[in-house]
């Protein structure tokens, strides 16, 4: 198994491309990201509930924004990151990159669902219906389908290598289509002026509201990294069965 070496500033960037070296690194890093996420979340929620003022138009209902917007941002960001690692995996033929794509997907789907759920709960008191076919929510729904499609495809393929590469193609095709989908949905929404107001006409942002939202977004980001690192470790254990280095792990003999 030849390990390519790519030196960036004297550091071998490809060193951690091997599951064997990445596994312990991920194990060490994961708790840091998780607890950072927890702290940021606590700070964000404190500001969101106790510092940010009430909104004039929407009352207290707007406080859903501190989950809805960060979740929506993460749902899209994670998909882009998945596509990035999918591309890296296809070009450099690195297993670990593909494993990372698979590790990210469930968390991305979770955030997409949260964005939709909180969007519905926000829409009901403000616009009167549980579902509003505005461009953002509809695009989120389609994004959820893209996530489910990816996970279903990988689940339906038994051979790990084929599953990796097929999933990678799908992720790349998906990421190219996301702007197309978003703009066509936006177009569709503006032409059909039935639901003439959209959830994107957010309350005028007081600085405190914005900082609360940003803190929650950072928390979601740290959380996503933590879950991806944890999940990829399990994937490594599952996929690398039979490898010699696994037997020397502390978990192997207890």
């Amino acid at each position, binding site marked *: 198994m030849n390990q390519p070496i790519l030196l960036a500033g004297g550091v071998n960037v490809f060193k951690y491309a091997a599951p064997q070296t990445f596994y312990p690194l991920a194990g060490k890093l994961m708790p840091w990201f998780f607890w950072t996420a927890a702290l940021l979340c606590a700070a964000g929620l*404190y500001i969101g*509930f*106790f*510092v*940010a*003022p*009430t909104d004039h138009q929407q*009352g*207290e*209902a707007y*406080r*859903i924004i501190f*989950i*809805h917007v960060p*979740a929506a941002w993460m749902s899209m960001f994670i998909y882009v990151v998945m596509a990035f690692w999918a591309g890296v995996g296809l070009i450099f033929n690195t297993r670990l990159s593909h494993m990372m794509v698979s590790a990210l997907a*469930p*968390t991305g789907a*979770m955030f997409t*669902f*949260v964005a939709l*759920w*909180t969007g519905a*709960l*926000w829409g*009901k*008191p403000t616009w009167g219906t549980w579902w509003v076919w505005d461009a953002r929510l509809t695009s989120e729904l389609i994004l959820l389908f893209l996530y489910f499609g990816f996970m279903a495809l990988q689940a339906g393929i038994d051979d790990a290598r084929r599953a990796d590469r097929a999933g990678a193609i799908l992720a790349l095709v998906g990421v190219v289509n996301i702007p197309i989908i978003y703009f066509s949905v936006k177009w569709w929404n503006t032409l059909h002026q039935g639901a003439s107001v959209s959830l994107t006409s957010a309350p005028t942002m007081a600085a405190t509201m914005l900082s609360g939202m940003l803190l929650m977004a950072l928390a979601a980001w740290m*959380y996503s990294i933590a*879950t991806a690192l*944890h*999940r990829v*470790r*399990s994937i490594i*254990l*599952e996929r690398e*069965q*039979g490898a010699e280095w*696994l*037997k020397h*792990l502390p*978990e*192997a*003999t*207890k």
Partner: protein
Amino acid sequence: MAETPPGGDKVNWNSWHDFWVMGGYAFYVWGSYAATLLLIIAEIALLKMRRLSAVRSLRQNTNTQVS
């Protein structure tokens, strides 16, 4: 003898009761936060279960190799 409102003297809420009622939007706001919390707990639980079964099969494989 006024009790300090929740959150200190930043007068968002005059009492804990006001906080929970959330201006009448309690169902929507707490419904959102509760659902999110549940999903995160579920994700963490699934993560732990997955790791457990991966480690378990690792142990089985390692022990059967010992001749």
